[in-house]
């Protein structure tokens, strides 16, 4: 089970896209996994033949668990499954504070073939996942005093959340008060299809979230009972649930960023008259479906400028900077109804403006309505936030860990502009850089923004 974000501890396998005997190639989509960020297509990290699927459809397993066994191309049978290696790659940095025992999720037994999460009889003292430790510390809870339901009795994030909720509850007698309801997007869709009122479904997922299995169980029992029928409350409850789950994911990432990353901030104004003239001329001769947005040109320039500033492109892991294996631009995409994802455009520096535009359209559409792929959620080496459409002039970014830089793009506005002793009116955009001072210095950051400015003034060469 790959980690699809620093705060992810479990995933539910909702669909296998391959069967034993299938030939797979690195990058192929092999499964669909449901997390609180939605359903994600999981890509395989190796090529070979699928030998065995170890996790049944519908099972909820911890990050790091082996999902399938693949015989690699040369005929050798590796001990572990390549799918699981994603967890190692995307594993969160260890928590800074106490000398922690090995993270429980990573130490999980290699192949839990049944549904995971069964409480172990004995809990080794003090075992807790990094995310659980952080939340417990934030809320002033002692992890050692909490009941762990994770692998080997480890305390998981969900356990800490339960404890926080239990403490917040007025009294144990108030059992009639319903817990705030949350449901995964997939569960919401299934509930809508089956006519199940989510507010009546007990959630067994992470943090009490309602999963597809819960909905299907509820639908099955409702068929036996005469009291089926969707209440009008279903829609708001599910929308609120999705929103709450995503807010938690954002909260965890941004809290970590502000706690761990010493940010520095730089800004520059860029004259876009040349770039916009070029764009206007291009679009005037293009069919509607082929037109370009300024965002595509800006992303192209950012990707090329990052080539010249490798210290801004990569991850801060285990106390050291690790350069990205390519410029994989995370693009912050706001979702209707709130929330945000920042999936990656792979090798953006190798894509033409046209290819970037197609990639961006595809990514926005899939982020909002469909499905993202696991590599898109884990591979971004720098993120770009474009808030120009909201009328914002300057973006003061928050770096998305473990990345080390965030490029902010504001609104393109006409401004008075002095050039060569002449004052004129030009379309100008304020571009900002928020960067991790552990990985780079202001001097490097300034050179990056200067490169961006130079590239945008010469759009024909982009």
């Amino acid at each position: 089970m790959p980690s699809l974000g620093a705060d992810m501890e479990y995933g539910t396998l909702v669909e296998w896209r391959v069967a034993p005997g299938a030939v797979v190639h690195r990058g192929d989509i092999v499964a669909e996994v449901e997390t609180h960020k939605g359903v994600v297509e999981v890509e395989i990290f190796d090529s070979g033949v699928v030998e065995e699927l170890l996790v049944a459809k519908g099972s909820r397993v911890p990050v790091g668990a082996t999902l399938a066994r693949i015989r690699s191309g040369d005929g050798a049978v590796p001990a572990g499954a390549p799918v699981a290696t994603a967890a190692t790659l995307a594993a969160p940095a260890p928590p800074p504070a106490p000398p922690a025992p090995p993270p429980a999720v990573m130490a999980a037994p290699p192949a839990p073939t049944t549904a995971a999460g069964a409480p172990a009889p004995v809990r080794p003292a003090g075992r807790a996942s990094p995310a659980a430790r952080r939340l417990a510390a934030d809320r002033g809870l002692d992890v050692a005093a909490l009941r762990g339901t994770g692998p080997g009795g480890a305390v998981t994030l969900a356990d800490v959340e339960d404890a926080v909720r239990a403490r917040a509850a007025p009294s144990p007698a108030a059992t009639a008060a319903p817990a705030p309801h949350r449901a995964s997007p997939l569960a919401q869709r299934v509930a809508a299809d089956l006519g199940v009122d989510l507010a009546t479904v007990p959630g067994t997922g992470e943090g009490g979230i309602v999963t597809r299995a819960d909905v299907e169980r509820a639908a099955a029992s409702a068929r036996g009972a005469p009291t089926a029928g969707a209440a009008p409350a279903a829609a708001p409850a599910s929308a609120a649930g999705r929103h709450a789950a995503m807010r938690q994911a954002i909260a965890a990432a941004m809290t970590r960023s502000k706690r761990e990353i010493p940010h520095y901030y730089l800004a520059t104004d860029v004259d876009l008259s040349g770039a916009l003239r070029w764009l206007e001329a291009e679009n005037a001769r293009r069919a509607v479906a082929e037109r370009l947005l300024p965002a595509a040109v800006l992303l192209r320039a950012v990707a090329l400028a990052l080539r010249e500033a490798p210290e801004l492109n990569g991850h801060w892991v285990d106390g050291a900077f690790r350069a990205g294996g390519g410029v994989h631009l995370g693009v912050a995409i706001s979702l209707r109804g709130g929330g945000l994802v920042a999936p990656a455009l792979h090798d953006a520096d190798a894509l033409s403006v046209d290819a970037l535009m197609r990639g961006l359209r595809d990514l926005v559409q899939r982020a909002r309505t469909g499905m993202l792929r696991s590599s898109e959620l884990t591979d971004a080496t720098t993120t770009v936030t474009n808030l120009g459409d909201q009328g914002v002039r300057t973006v003061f970014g928050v770096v998305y860990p473990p990345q080390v830089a965030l490029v902010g793009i504001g609104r393109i506005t006409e401004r008075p502009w002095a050039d060569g002793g002449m004052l004129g009116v030009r379309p100008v955009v304020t571009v900002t850089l928020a960067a991790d001072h552990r990985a780079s210095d202001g001097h490097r950051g300034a050179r990056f923004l200067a490169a961006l400015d130079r590239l945008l003034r010469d759009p024909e060469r982009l």
Partner: protein
Amino acid sequence: MTDVGTNGAAIRAAVVRALQRIAPEIDPAALRPDVSLREQVDLDSMDFLNFVIGLAESLGVEVPESDYRQLATLDGAVAYLAAHGARTA
């Protein structure tokens, strides 16, 4: 396509459908025809481009970028599209 009124209504319906494809949550009855769509529907530039692409597909009108302003409101869009030969089925 019998008279202008019927055609106008058909175009209006097509415009609303194109909007709903981008923003499924909108209530067509609550849309104010004379208020900016971007303001009412929270469209970013990608959404607006997809809206224009949707109009080209359903009504056969390729709106040039320089005319985007005329699509600012529902009334404006319907008038513009009717004047530029929108074909409704």
